[in-house]
């Protein structure tokens, strides 16, 4: 295993960008799955009621929002790790 930090800069930017793109696509898929999909099946979801909340309504009013917040903080965390891995963190310039 070679240390990615020692690769030439062009190579590093390329690999870094590839991993970044993959992460973006995965997170966007989750984003889509919690906001758009529940709208399409809201009537079925509304048959499930938890603590007074019909699930379809809940996804629109709070459920998807919680996931949005988590997604963004996760991305910040994952990208910090990726920065470190490729020696690209702008914190310790």
């Amino acid at each position, binding site marked *: 295993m070679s240390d990615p930090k020692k690769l030439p800069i062009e190579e590093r930017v390329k690999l*870094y960008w590839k991993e970044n793109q993959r992460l973006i696509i995965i997170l*966007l898929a989750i984003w889509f799955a919690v906001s758009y999909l529940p709208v*399409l099946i809201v009537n079925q979801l509304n048959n499930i009621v938890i603590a*007074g909340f019909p699930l379809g309504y809940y996804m*629109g009013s709070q459920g998807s929002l919680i996931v*949005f917040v988590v997604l*963004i903080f996760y991305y*910040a965390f994952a990208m910090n790790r990726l920065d470190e891995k490729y020696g*690209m963190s*702008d914190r310790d310039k």
Partner: protein
Amino acid sequence: MAATTGAQSVFRNKMARYYGYFTIGFIVVATIMLLLEIFAGLPTQFIGWIFMLLTLALYATIGILSRTKAIDEYYVAGRNVPAVFNGMATGADWMSAASFISMAGTLYLIGYDGLAYIMGWTGGYVLLALLFAPYLRKFGQYTIPDFVGARFGGNTARVVAAICAIIVSLTYVTAQVVGVGLIMQRFVGVDYRLGIIIGLSGVLVCSFLGGMKAVTWTQVAQYIILIIAYLIPVTALSMSLTGFPIPQLSYGQALSNITRLEAEQKISVTTESPVVPGKFVTTGYIPPFNEGMSNAPGVTAVRQLNTALGTNFTPPTTQTIPDAKRPELGDWRSTPWNFLALMACLMLGTAGLPHILIRFYTVPSVRESRLSVGWSLFFIFLLYFTAPAYAAFSRWNILQNVVGQEIMALPEWTANWGRQGLIAIRDFSTINGVAVGSEPSWVKNLVTAGSLTITDTNGNGVIDLGPFAKDGDNPATAGEIAGTAVTEASLDGVLQFNEFGSPTGPAIDGDLVVLSTPDIAGLPYTIGALVAAGGLAAALSTADGLLVVIASAIAHDIYFKVVNPKASLNTRMWLGKTMIVVAAAVAALLALPRLALIAQMVAWAFSMATATFFPIVLLGIFWSRANGPGAIAGMIGGLATTIFYMAMNYWNPAFNVLGITHLGSGIFGLPVAIILCIVVSLLTPAPSREIQELVTHLRNPVTDDEVMAKYGSGDSITAH
């Protein structure tokens, strides 16, 4: 360097301490006012004034303390705003009078369908975090047209982007000014115009003296005030209805009670569509997609314009869909397409609005910019996560304690709000014995509309109601009133859901839901004044951020970058400050006639941003082959398609695709913009090597700022 990071955290801790003291101080002042009101009987008018003046003075003080002559402090707050504070500032910048006052009201009125706004106005931040913020921070200039100009190599692209930014921001700021005027009028009791002037002077002191730096630090204070003001009344309402003080978790109980009461009161019913046999639509709060299409806002807009401008345009004929007379237009209710289109436009538009995008220029690093979007959404989330609870508790309370009650036994606050002309109890029993000619305005409106006639048959000068009777000529008559508006339920002395309305229509004004909650929950006036101060903070903070965008688009993008690149720093500062005042004055003038069209235009701004800024900035970062001609073609094509669909549907709802209304029209402009940008880019030469290098540097967080500077304005960029 570690030292820089250390200095940053010292600065962050210092600011955290200041704002901690501020929060405690604010709570102490509010508590003292509360005690004075309860024990010393402080007059309500006085409390209203104290809250207004105190908060305005506070914003002005922060503005004066942060006054600056440095250009990068003026445009991007010196790029040293820590992620958490930038998050609060973005939150205040983002949450306008509409979020604070109207959001819960919209949900109260239309139930599930209103959730498109809740998801739309938060989900956009995911796109911002993943697709835009880190790269714009890396680019590190002053404005969004700066980015468009540098990436797409040329002043044409820059000017087109600057003009788009000005149009979007000006309509938006006008809506905020209207909000300021209304809040001042309702809670301090000053004239609407005077309210605008007092409110705007608060904004101006801030943005004029200190630009983005002052705006940022004021917005942090405004965020703290607005979130406290939003949470207190709904917590009290939850406490009084359920005995549990966390409304965000306990409103499930409100939802199940709403479902039960709506069924009991026949508000939620399933009926067969009048035009599509075999298709059933359920009305009510929880069931989705039951809003029909209508061009009523378009009709109102034309009438208002005619009054305001003295013109004589013919309003379109009022139409609604489904229309039993035109079954070929179909019934789009109970399909999700309009909901999805609107939600998508709100999300993509959020990620494309200039006043939000520039906030990510103000953080110290790419790393902080990613984190900052997280904090932004977290602080916005606190309000949006609560709005559905607000709406549900209000609706439950209205259905349980107001609707179905004897008119005589209604809670006291309904009479207060009725006297102020904010709500109307539309049961005819309320006009029994009222002198002819002094009926409430909702009765006069019915007479004008032809659905009610009043005849003083016994000549005693007052309206006498007899028992309900039906005779052959009139569908329904009783005593001295007659007409189609008279039904058995409309004069039985018991309030029906559709009788609880505004003076102009059968539904209450959505804005009242948040504003009336303190009264409904029986809280002292001080809490009402606190809510008004919160609404004012929301409107002013958004207005501040928008004024900076407009001023920088004119002074920086158009004047400095295109007209006179040799302008001195002093000239640019001076012009920027002048433009802030000019933009504020223009917004105040536009706000004076109080056109409903303005609120509509704010909603349209999202569609326009969806079809212009969003695809262009996205392709600019993620596709290095995109070039200037492609971007210009994309922006113009996207905008034209969006405006065409918008205008056609606004005027005539029969013009629609899949039942999507004008609010979601950006969904049609978006693919046009993307396809045009790709096709035109491929047909024209690739961007220069230098620009392709710029794209590579954008993706690499560690390229030196000095390297970046040569792609941008040439101004030196503040070191970290």
